[in-house]
C-alpha cells in the first residue's frame, strides 16, 4: 500500500489531536479511503498499527459503517437517496436511469470501472428531493425528468444507452 505523502502527513497530524488514539480510527479510515478508494486488508493492518489496536478492531469498523468499503467504487461514484421523501419524489426512477445510462448494476460498478451507482439512506436533503451525491458533491432536486440532462452535465457528457444493467438486487440485507 502506497499512501500519498500528504495523506501520511494528515494521518500524523490527526492522531494526536484526540485524547485517545483509538478515536482517530474513523478519520484515518476516511483518509486512507480517499487516498486508495477502498480499505484493503493490508490497509487495515497498517492502520491498526498506527492507532495501537488489533486489526480486528479496524475490520469491525469497515464492516459496520456503510461509507467504508472493502472493494473499489467506480471512478465516479453516484449515490442516490432511497429513503421516503426522495422516493416520493421519484428517486427509484432516478436510480434506474443512472443504472441504464452508466451501465452499472445497482450497488455495483460498470464493466469499465468508470461508474458505480448505489442507493444510500436519507441524505438530510429531503426538502429538495431527490438528492444525489456525485462523489463528494450533493445535488438537489434531481427529478426523473431532469436526470438525463443531469448525467450529461455532471457525470458523463457522452452517456448513451448501454446494455441494460443487471437485475437490481432487492433488499440486500436479506
Amino acid at each position, binding site marked *: 500500500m502506497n499512501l500519498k505523502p500528504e495523506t501520511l502527513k494528515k494521518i500524523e497530524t490527526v492522531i494526536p*489531536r*484526540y*485524547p*485517545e488514539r*483509538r*478515536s*482517530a*480510527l*474513523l*478519520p484515518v*479510515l*476516511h483518509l486512507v479511503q480517499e487516498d486508495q478508494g477502498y480499505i484493503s486488508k493490508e490497509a487495515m493492518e497498517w492502520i491498526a498499527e498506527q*492507532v495501537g*489496536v488489533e486489526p480486528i*478492531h479496524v475490520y*469491525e*469498523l469497515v464492516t*459496520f*459503517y*456503510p*461509507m*467504508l468499503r472493502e472493494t473499489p467504487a467506480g471512478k465516479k461514484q453516484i*449515490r442516490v437517496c*432511497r*429513503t*421516503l*421523501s426522495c*422516493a*416520493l*419524489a*421519484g*428517486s*427509484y*426512477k432516478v436510480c434506474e436511469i443512472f443504472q441504464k445510462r452508466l451501465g452499472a448494476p445497482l450497488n455495483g460498478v460498470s464493466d469499465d470501472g468508470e461508474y458505480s451507482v448505489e442507493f*444510500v*439512506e*436519507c*441524505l*438530510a*436533503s*429531503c*426538502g*429538495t*428531493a431527490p438528492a444525489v*451525491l456525485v462523489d*463528494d*458533491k*450533493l445535488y438537489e432536486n434531481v427529478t*426523473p425528468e431532469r436526470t438525463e440532462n443531469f448525467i450529461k452535465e455532471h457525470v458523463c457528457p457522452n452517456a448513451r444507452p448501454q446494455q441494460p444493467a443487471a437485475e437490481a438486487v*432487492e*433488499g440486500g*440485507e*436479506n
Partner: protein
Amino acid sequence: MAAQETRMLLKYTDEPGYTPDIGCYIKHGGYETLKKALKLKPEELRQEIKDSEIRGRGGAGFPTGVKWGFIDYKSGKPVYLICNADESEPGTFKDRQLMYKDPHQLLEGMMISAYAIQAKLSFIYIRGEMFRGAKILEQAIEEARAKGFLGDNICGSGYSCDMLVHRGAGAYICGEETGLIESLEGKRAYPRIKPPYFPAVFGLYQCPTIVNNVETLCHVKHAIDMGGKEFAKIGTPGNTGTRIWSVSGHIQKPGYYEFPCGGITMGELIYDLCGGLYPGRKLKAVIPGGTSSKVLNAEDRYTGKLKDGTPFDWSINDIPLDFDSFVHVGSMSGSAAVIVMDDSTDMVEALANINAFYAHESCGQCTPCREGCLWMNKITSRMMAGNAKETDADLLHSVSLQISGRTICAHGEAAAWPTESFVDKFRDEFLAKASGNASAKPESAYRLI
C-alpha cells in the same frame, strides 16, 4: 391572516449577501454573547439555560438545563461537550441549514455551552455524507481560533477549550447519543445501556459528557443573549423558543420553516407556509417528526385532555406545532420533520420504504431489533411483491410490539412505531393488499420500493 415565519436562528441565513465567514458573522453582532457569557460564572449560565426551559431539538425533547444538571463534577474527570450533527432521521434537514449557512452561530453557542459546563474539549460529530459541511465547520473553527473565540485563553478569560470536527461514516445509529460516543471512541456504534451509562456521568472515555443537537446549541446562544426567563416567553409554557420544522413529501413548497413553538398549527404549516398540496390531491397522512414518529391519518379526529385538563377535539389541521401536542395525539414531534403524503400514496409501499431503512440501520446489538426489523422489512417487501397474506397486518403488528421496549436504545421504538401506526391507522389498505382489492396507484405516483 395567513401564518408566518418568525426567524431567530435562521434570521440571517437566507439574506442576500450573508456568508458563512467570520467577518460577516461579527458584522451581524456575532460573538458578543460569548464575550458577555465569559464574564459570568459557569453556574450562572447553567441557571439561565434551566430558566430558558430549552428542550433538546434532536428528537427526545429533553430539557437541556436538566441534562446539564446531571454532570458529575465530583468525579474530578474532564468534561466533554459533543455537538450531535449526525442529522439522519428521514425527513430532517434543519441542522444542515444551520451548519452550512451560519456555522459561527453554532460555534458561539458551543463555546458558551462549553464554558458553562466547563468542558475541556468539544467535538462536532457530523455525518460522513456532509462532505462540504465538515469543510465549512473546519474553516469556521480556524477563523474562530485565529480571533481567540476558541482554543487557548478564550477572549482573555483564562478559559481554554478546543474543538474538533469528527466525521461519521453513514450509520444512522450514531445519532443515538451513546452510540455516537462509542463511535467517537473509534468503535462500532453500539448504544450503551442506561443506567449506568448516562453520558453526563459515564460518557466519552467514561468521563462526564454532554451531547446536544446542533439546533439546541444554537438556541443556547440566544437564550444567554436575551436571558433565560426572556427566552422562556417565546412559545408556550413548557414548549419554549422557536423551532425549525423540515417539511417534505407531497407538498408545493417543501423546505425549512422557523416559528415559535405552538405558534402555528399543522394546517397553517401545510396550507399557508408550504402552499398546500399538489393540484387535485387530498391529504392522506402526515408523519410529524421524522419517520420514527407514528403516522397520523388525515381523516382521524384527535380528542383528549391537555396537561392542564382542558379538553381538546382536533382535526389533523388543528394540531399546534409544539412538543407536547403530538404526544397528546399519540405520536411525537421528534426532530420536527413533517413528511406529507397525499391520496396517491400506497401506505403499504410507504411502510415498505421505511422498513427497508430501519432494517439497514439496526446496529445488530439487540436481538428483537436486529431480527424484528429484518422480518418487518421482509413482510412488507413480500406484500409489495404481490404475495400479501390476510394475516400480514396482524403479523406485522405483533412483530412491532415485540421490538419496542425490549432494546437497549430507542432504535427499537423508532423502527417499531412506523409499522405499528401504519397498520393501526391504515389497516384496510393492508388487508386489501391480500384480498386483491387494493385500488391501483395513479400513474403519477412513483415507486417507493
